[in-house]
């Protein structure tokens, strides 16, 4: 099913490109696993369309296929910005099924999840190359941002010369440090938020309209 869905999505993407220039920009929501990408995507989608994009979970790699919510209209200061939100699987350089075993998942299911998560990373990287017009890079502000994955992905995004916003998520956590993220990527604007609790969402939408409108 996932394979057929992906093929259909690709065909749809191609036809969209061929016949509709000036369509909404595709904004990819990227970041490492468990940063809160799907929670943020659902928050944005619910706020402006009433629908969610996908299931949220504390288990890493819950999102193993990219999901898209089209024509999300965000109204700011009398203007309307229309974007397509692409929620992508968490990007990592290593996937091990044993990390799923900690969440009481059977070994066979954990191995399957691991394979799907790996496919999801490949898909996310493919989308970044082919179909993304702007990036919202989501980080868990309670975690160390100086990682190989973050550095590499930010570097790739910068090489594409597309607009990028860095969201310091989970500011509701006690160990949160927005400053640590700002220091890690001083060349980009960092927006603090809690997608789970809806904190600072006004500034989030302001920045989305400013950067991707």
């Amino acid at each position, binding site marked *: 099913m996932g394979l057929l869905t992906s093929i259909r999505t690709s065909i749809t993407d191609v036809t969209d490109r061929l016949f509709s220039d000036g369509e909404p920009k595709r904004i990819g929501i990227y970041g490492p696993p468990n940063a809160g990408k799907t929670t943020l995507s659902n928050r944005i989608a619910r706020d402006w369309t009433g629908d969610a994009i996908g299931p949220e979970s504390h288990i890493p790699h819950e999102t193993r296929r990219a999901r898209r919510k089209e024509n999300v209209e965000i109204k700011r200061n009398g203007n309307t910005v229309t974007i397509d939100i692409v929620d992508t699987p968490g990007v990592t*350089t290593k*996937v091990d*099924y044993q990390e799923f075993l900690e969440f009481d998942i059977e070994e066979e299911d954990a191995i399957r999840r691991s394979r799907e998560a790996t496919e999801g990373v*490949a898909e996310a990287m493919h989308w970044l*190359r082919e179909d993304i017009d702007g990036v919202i890079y989501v980080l868990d502000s309670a975690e160390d941002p100086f990682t190989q994955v973050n550095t590499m992905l930010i570097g790739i995004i910068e090489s594409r010369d597309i607009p990028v916003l860095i969201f310091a998520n989970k500011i509701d956590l006690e160990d949160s440090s927005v400053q640590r993220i700002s220091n890690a990527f001083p060349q980009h604007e960092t927006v603090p938020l809690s997608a789970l609790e809806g904190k600072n969402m006004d500034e989030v939408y302001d920045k989305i309209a400013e950067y991707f409108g």
Partner: protein
Amino acid sequence: MPHECTNCGRTFPDGSKKMLSGCPDCGGNKFQFSPARSASSESATLDGPQAGSETGDPSAAGEVPPGGASTERVDGSSASRRDDGVTGGPEGSDRDDSESSESVREWVSRKADQNDHRVDTSDFAEWPDSARRPEDRASADGDSDPDRSTTRAKMVDDENSAQADARTSVVSDGLPTGTVEGTTDAARTDDDPASADEDDYPPEHGRVVSEPTGDRPSIDELRAELNEQFESIKIVRPGEYELNLMELYNREEYIISLQEDGRYVIDVPDSWRESDN
């Protein structure tokens, strides 16, 4: 008197030629030189002639006890050896020569050992944890070269053997175990395999930096690992994957699904576009 026959005790004045071909009385050819006593003897002579001073009677020296000679030796040889060697005749002379040359050999051996130790401790004042310390190397030499001690005993010219031994011991410590290395581990990892062969020979001015450990991967293993890292997705085992993000980003085709045998199911976007047209 400065010279005294150690056999019969006859004394001779300094510069006397009577002792050149051995003691005229007993034929002994070992003499001891004692300037202090000669001074006292001379002073005694000045005070008054001492009867029997030329007679060879040890007691004629007056204040010098019979056993006092052993405490006044200044030539460096031991008293016991002198006492044992006092046999008189040509045999005693030969033995005396051999004993004196033996003391030279021992001295050279000591110097060689000291030099060996000095090189180890002063040149390598700071020892890395992985390098063997001099005391360990000394014990290893004993195990690895059991013939060395017997060879040393059989060598006629032990001064040369001691020097040669000192030289070879320094070099041979590094050769069999490969402890002599001219480069650091970090520099070695990028070297060609040919350079690894060169490491079998000690560099001219090399010094012991570290001893190779058994768990260090070979050049081929490192190269294979590097090659593997250029793959987009490495299947370590079912359910465990390593991903090369840059390679995944750069490749044209789109990996849709993974097979456990390492095969990919891919989608080439251009082909879809062409077929769609």
